[in-house]
């Protein structure tokens, strides 16, 4: 009898119930979309912030000691002054390897080009690197220095005798794309010729430098397999007190704190792990980038959280409103039921089952609609899909149940206070 009545009510009221289902579906789709976007926005914005360049620099530990104690300036000699190029791939073997999105080793020297001294930097431009795991990653300064504007072409790493020249220097020496530049390198005054593939404008000190391929400079300086510095761009978690304490001295932490710190993607713990992986290295977080990233990430996440709360509250109230309106409309029906001998409990059970069934149907449809909305936002804003977070599902289910139940509370209160005679009379 109960199911028959339920079926009857749902079919008879199909248009109104459909409207309730649509409203719930809209509310749920909003919840799903906003929660998915909110949970993923940190990661997305973090990747965008990578445009600010490297946030960790790796240098040889011994370099500064040699220079200070023995007065050796940078140049050939002293193996401890360099990192091994073969070690660069080890960056991708650390615990937080997936968070390292780009890196480029470089070697620097002073040389004479034309009439004056210039700084020549050998680096990877856009290199396919095979890792010990068999994975292949593409990395280099093309990815790391996304703000450079290049006139001409980027140098290809296989094209050993090509170079890129900074715009200020090119202007000073009258160099154009396609020219050949002769470099007089230090040591035994070797002369090497490079072809200029492109000019770049970086708006920084690089504008007065010449960038060549790493193998070219290593050969010219007799430093095969050596690099002077590695710039690393990593996705990090905003710093907190623990991270600041650890950055000062990791040994000062308790074992439990140390584990938490080591297993969180703080810039300091990633730097620490890089030092462990690359022998004789010293990894330093670039505070300008690391700190600012943290601030901006936190603000964005908080902003999205508040917008999510507003839209959720809005949709919850909307659904609750519609349910109440719907119940009031049917007061005559419930009055009749009560007049025919139905107890308050019977009527309540009937209406609640009705609402929950409708809510479920609307909720499922809304969930998928919401995933669609989240993808639209992700594709349009960040050009990549928003990760579908399974954690959202229980939250959505919980919110549907809560919203429909709490939303129908005013309606239920009204139902219980119904006096059959008054309602049937038409008041």
């Amino acid at each position: 009898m109960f199911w028959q009545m339920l079926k009857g009510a749902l079919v008879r009221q199909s248009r109104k119930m459909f409207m309730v289902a649509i409203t719930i579906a809209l509310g749920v789709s909003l919840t799903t979309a906003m929660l998915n976007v909110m949970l993923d926005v940190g990661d997305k914005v973090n990747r965008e912030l990578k445009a600010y360049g490297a946030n960790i620099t790796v240098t040889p530990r011994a370099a500064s000691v040699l220079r200070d104690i023995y007065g050796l300036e940078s140049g050939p000699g002293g193996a401890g002054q360099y990192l091994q190029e073969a070690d660069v791939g080890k960056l991708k073997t650390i615990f937080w390897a997936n968070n390292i999105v780009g890196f480029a080793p470089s070697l620097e020297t002073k040389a004479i080009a034309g009439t004056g001294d210039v700084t020549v930097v050998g680096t990877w431009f856009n290199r396919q690197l095979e890792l010990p795991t068999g994975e292949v990653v593409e990395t280099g300064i093309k990815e790391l220095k996304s703000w450079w504007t290049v006139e001409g072409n980027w140098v290809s790493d296989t094209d050993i005798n090509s170079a890129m020249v900074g715009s200020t220097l090119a202007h000073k020496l009258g160099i154009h794309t396609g020219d050949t530049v002769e470099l007089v390198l230090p040591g035994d005054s070797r002369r090497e010729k490079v072809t200029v593939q492109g000019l770049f404008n970086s708006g920084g000190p690089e504008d007065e430098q010449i960038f060549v391929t790493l193998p070219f400079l290593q050969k010219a300086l007799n430093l095969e397999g050596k690099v002077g510095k590695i710039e690393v761009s990593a996705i990090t978690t905003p710093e907190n007190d623990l991270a600041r304490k650890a950055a000062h001295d990791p040994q000062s932490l308790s074992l439990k704190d140390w584990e938490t710190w080591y297993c969180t993607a703080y810039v300091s713990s990633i730097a620490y792990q890089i030092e462990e992986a690359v022998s004789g290295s010293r990894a330093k977080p670039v505070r300008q980038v690391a700190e600012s990233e943290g601030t901006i990430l936190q603000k964005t996440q908080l902003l999205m959280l508040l917008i999510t709360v507003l839209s959720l509250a809005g949709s919850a109230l909307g659904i609750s409103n519609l349910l109440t309106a719907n119940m009031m409309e049917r007061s005559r029906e419930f009055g009749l039921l009560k007049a025919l001998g139905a107890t308050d409990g019977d009527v309540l059970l009937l209406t609640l089952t009705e609402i929950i069934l409708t809510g479920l149907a609307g909720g499922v449809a809304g969930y998928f609609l919401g995933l669609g909305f989240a993808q639209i936002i992700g594709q349009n804003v960040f050009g990549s899909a928003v990760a579908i977070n399974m954690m959202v599902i229980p939250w959505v289910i919980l919110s549907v149940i809560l919203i429909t139940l709490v939303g129908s509370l005013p309606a239920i209160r009204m139902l219980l206070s119904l006096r059959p005679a008054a309602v049937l009379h038409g008041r």
Partner: protein
Amino acid sequence: MAGDKKMTKYSMYTKMIWHALLRRRSRMLIALMAVAIGATVVSGLVTIYYDVPRQMGREFRSYGANLLLTPAGDQQIISESLVSNATSLLQADKLIGIAPYLYDRVKVNEQPLQVAGTRFQSVKKVSPYWQIRGNWPEDQSEDIVIGADIAERLKIEPGQQVTLTVAGNDTEKKVKVAGIVRTGGPEEEFVFLDLSLLQQMLHKEGVVSIAQVSITANEAELTALTQKIGQQVPGVAPRLVKQVTQSEQTVLGKLQALVYLVTIVVLLLTLICVATTMMAVVTERRKEIGLKKALGAENRSIILEFLGEGLALGALGGLMGTILGFFFAQAVSVNVFGRIISFQPLIALLALVVSIVVTGLACLIPVKIATDVEPAIVLRGE
């Protein structure tokens, strides 16, 4: 006489709407709430959308200077008066800070080191990412700050006394190290002291090597500014810090697009929610419409009556929502950015108009359907 008749007609109309609203208090309260929620979301989100780039732009200034004032031509130094000439062209309310730097070499405890004279209060504003162990030096004091690399090498701790000497000036100066700076950048290889003190020691009064400027402006505004300074202040060569300006442009653009899309999606869904609630409230009154028709009311007057009710609801709910929405946006701004926002009359107007239009439309559709059917069928209860 005709005027009188018109008057009674209007007063009757107002009376009917007023009564409809009052008599059905609980129903109308529901509708009013729906409209108010919609308007809150509209005005709140649109205000945030307009305010985010401005507020976020300020946050992005934690990346440090985005404009450098360098000496023009082959000059190594630039006079401070030229710098203040150039900075007077910048809008004061957008300026975060100007930090002048004078670079040279000094000896600290007989070690030759690079030194930079600056104003610490300005550095704090321009480069908020400097991590200082110890303290920032007091204004006008002779305390210094040293880079972390130097501190590690020379085993210097904050609070320690060091001797400072400059070339061509034999007088030694004992100064206190107030703090040690860690940035992960070239600053760790520098000694910093007060600009006036360094100028005095080097006999280079009134000159600096470079001035760092941090200003909230987008790339186009900055380019215009550099051109203006370059033309009006000869001797100063302004340069953009491209890494900062261009990246800021990209990230800020994406953030604004994100808030924009979210706003659109939320708005759409909220408006549909408001419309369905209004429709439910009006559909319930089909019987009333049928009775009015049976009593001889014209379709037009019924529609007008419902429309009047809808518009009154829309205006009242819209007004409530607009005010609530502003407070919501204010709360967001204070919580996220720690700054208050100003009231935008245009957005308030927009929210009001949108809620009136949506409520009106949401009323019209079910009324139109109800007036199209035969009164007898409606009254019979079909």
